[in-house]
């Protein structure tokens, strides 16, 4: 066995570090040498993570990488959660990168579909966040990670600030498997507010020519919430949160869940639910949660990332949020996703399309939007072994009379208005994503949340409790029974739907004692972004595009 060497990766790493050493003073590389640094450290065929998180982007390094010569650097395998910048697409358009494994694309969803169709991208898979993170430690470990932090000191210690997000996970996988970690920072300082990433895991630090970009993704303007969404929010509170006593949960980012957050202090209070529901959240810091926090509803919130404008507010609420000793938020996507998967009793979010089996997707024609975290939030965790009243009640309902050994179930609630923009029905026979998967010859049709994980569907017409359905036919009729005037809804069997209603499988607003006439914007604890600012005592500083004063 003496011929086998066991440190090939380490020697490879050392050779690259040696090549880059003349460019640096210790770990610090001058801004202008960014291209030379990347050329010294990156080799064709490398597996590379160019930190693109849900929010934070290593945009300075992305631009520098995308400008390199494809004759020198090519066939990169990009493994990162977010593909959201033009530079990310340029890597493929310019022939620097070939293969892609990612989670979320957002604004680049159409460009990715086009590049895929044109053969510019060889797609590994579209993952969920923790699924991709898991593969960092199995078969997609990066050779090089280009990451973003707020500040570094001269030892290479990093302060990632409120948007820590994916950084610890990326660095963990790369640094401990002979990979190379390069950090772009907004500023070099002598002393950091706190150390988020120890310098021993960081090889080079380079000051970017501008602060890294963060997109405000989780701000929903209360002024845009409709009365239909408020009606759905009332039904969700009275028909799901209250009877199951849901305390630990995750909210999606749509307007219907923003409406729920904003009626907790009004409608929820009137129902006497404070302290009984919605006390612990795995959630980005939604500005619309401020009134519920301020009125004492929320006990604690752990965050995947941060949100533009929320930093000061969170720093002033240390009992609610996870903060460093320096007083600023520490987010962590991996930890928060894990909390959402195993420690939440409910996921509730909106979707763009839902089929007769309850499968839903946000991949619409010509767009590969990715999954982000929703599939993990919106899936029953089969490995969960701790009981809670909400989880047990859901399990009991699913088992019906049959169960002697009953396991619990996570509540997975889809809120969907029957018609979307331009009066396009949200309920469909076949998801767009299924057709797209056929057209693009994907191995797996992209489904955001599988029907067998969905427990409830809330529309303006009512709530369908799929846990109580005893056959595929009942499920289909329960879904048709809340699908309103869409073709799917009009295809219902009235007699069956009425029987389901008698069994409370379907509940209309009137069955829940809710009058649609009460669903007015007066129920919102804040009706505008300005109200949110006032509610926060001026601590919330909304980004310019959300102001109307």
């Amino acid at each position, binding site marked *: 066995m003496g011929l086998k060497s066991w440190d090939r990766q380490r020697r490879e790493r050392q050779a690259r570090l040696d090549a880059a050493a003349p460019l640096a003073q210790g770990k610090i590389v001058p801004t202008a040498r960014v291209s030379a640094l990347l050329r010294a450290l990156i080799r064709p065929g490398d597996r590379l993570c160019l930190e693109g998180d849900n929010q934070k982007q290593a945009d300075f390094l992305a631009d520098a990488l995308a400008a390199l010569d494809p004759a020198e650097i090519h066939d990169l395998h990009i493994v990162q959660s977010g593909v959201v910048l033009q530079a990310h697409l340029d890597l493929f358009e310019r022939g620097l990168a070939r293969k892609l494994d990612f989670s979320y694309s957002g604004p680049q969803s159409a460009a990715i579909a086009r590049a895929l169709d044109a053969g510019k991208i060889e797609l590994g898979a579209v993952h969920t966040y923790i699924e991709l993170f898991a593969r960092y430690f199995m078969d997609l470990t990066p050779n090089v990670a280009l990451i973003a932090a707020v500040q570094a000191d001269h030892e290479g210690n990093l302060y990632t600030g409120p948007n820590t997000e994916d950084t610890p996970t990326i660095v963990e996988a790369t640094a401990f498997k002979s990979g190379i970690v390069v950090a772009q920072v907004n500023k070099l300082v002598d002393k950091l507010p706190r150390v988020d990433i120890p310098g021993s895991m960081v090889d080079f630090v380079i000051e970017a020519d501008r602060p890294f970009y963060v997109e405000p993704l989780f701000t929903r303007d209360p002024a845009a919430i409709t009365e239909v969404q408020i009606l759905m929010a009332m039904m969700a509170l009275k028909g799901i949160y209250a009877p199951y006593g849901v305390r630990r949960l995750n909210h999606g980012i749509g307007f219907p869940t923003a409406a729920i957050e904003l009626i907790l202090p009004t409608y929820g209070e009137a129902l006497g639910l404070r302290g009984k529901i919605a006390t612990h959240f795995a959630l980005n810091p939604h500005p619309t949660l401020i009134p519920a926090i301020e009125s004492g509803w929320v006990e604690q919130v752990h965050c995947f990332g941060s949100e533009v404008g929320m930093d000061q507010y969170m720093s002033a609420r240390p009992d609610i949020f996870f903060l460093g000793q320096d007083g600023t938020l520490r987010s962590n996507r991996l930890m928060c996703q894990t909390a959402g998967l195993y420690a939440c009793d409910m996921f509730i979010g909106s979707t763009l399309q839902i089929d007769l089996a309850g499968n839903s997707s946000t991949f619409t024609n010509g767009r590969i939007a990715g999954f982000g975290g929703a599939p993990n939030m919106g899936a029953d965790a089969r490995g969960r072994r701790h009981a809670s009243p909400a989880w047990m009640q859901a399990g009991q309902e699913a088992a019906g009379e049959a169960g002697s050994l009953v396991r619990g179930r996570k509540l997975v609630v889809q809120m969907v208005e029957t018609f979307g923009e331009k009066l396009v029905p949200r309920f469909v026979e076949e998801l767009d994503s299924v057709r797209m998967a056929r057209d693009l010859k994907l191995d797996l049709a992209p489904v955001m949340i599988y029907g067998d994980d969905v427990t409830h569907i809330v529309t303006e017409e009512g709530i369908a409790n799929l846990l109580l359905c005893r056959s595929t036919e009942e499920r289909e009729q329960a879904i048709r029974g809340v699908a309103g005037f869409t073709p799917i809804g009009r295809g219902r069997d009235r007699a069956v739907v009425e029987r389901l209603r008698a069994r409370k499988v379907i509940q209309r607003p009137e069955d829940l004692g809710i009058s649609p006439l009460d669903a007015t*914007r*007066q129920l919102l604890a804040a*009706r505008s972004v300005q109200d949110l600012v006032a509610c926060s005592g001026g601590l919330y500083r909304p980004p310019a595009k959300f102001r109307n004063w």
Partner: protein
Amino acid sequence: MNAPGMNAQSDYYYEASARERAQGLLDPGSFTEFMGPQSRCLSPHLAQFNLTGAFDDGIIIGAGLLQGMPVYVAAQEGRFMGGAFGELHGAKLVGLLRAAAAHKITAVLLALDTGGVRLQEANAGEMAISEVLRAIVAARRAGVAVIALVGGRAGAFGGGGIIAASCSRIIVSGHGRISVSGPEVIETNKGVEEFDSKDRGLVWRVTGGRSRALLGGADAYVADRISAFRDAALAQIPNAPPFTLESLQAEQARLSQRLAAYGTCRDATEIWRQAGLEPPAPVADLSEADYAGLSRLPEADHDAR
């Protein structure tokens, strides 16, 4: 169900529909709508574009009492096509103003909430605006006080901005915006360097109610409440200036002075600085009480309009 605010009549002006504004401005129960939705007067143009019309064409007109005094009221529905002026929409307002002049009504409350001309109706919409302007002048000449109220989502833009400026008095709230070319229009035509429409703080500093009131582009500033607009209208009606050659010349002189003094300023903050009226904090962030304590430009209080 007795949650805070539930089932209570909302007093928020910004949130209210045009009909709620018309009713809320007047004495309770006194509003009579003319050509209401039951008359089904639909725009003759929208159907050609496969657009759904509204049975009131986006404007509510009628009569009622303001503290016992007979007045007319018109309220645009900013949520229907941005409150834009079409042929029928404009005709309803022209008719109301002419009736006010003919019947010597003391005042017309004009709740503007509009982006200007309804593009689909093009020339018919432009003509509607001209006819409204003529009718306002005629009504004012006949002694009617025409009071513009601006505090809705759409503001008063395009021809709506010109209409506001030709009224006897303008009352505005913090959400209200008054201008002719909208922020996006300026950006499209002159470039983002000239005006960044996404910098919403800038948009409100230049066109918003607080700035307009401080600089004299509006005569009264009120909180975002229907009752506050009503109180301000009651206060302004007796002070409505006559529409005479002298008042026009005075207004022209005032505006020329302002242009000479502040014509090169690119932002409202520069005007305040030049006028020596630097507010203690960004004007938008002041509480209503602190804002009320600010002094206006010396020439903002005038009797010209």
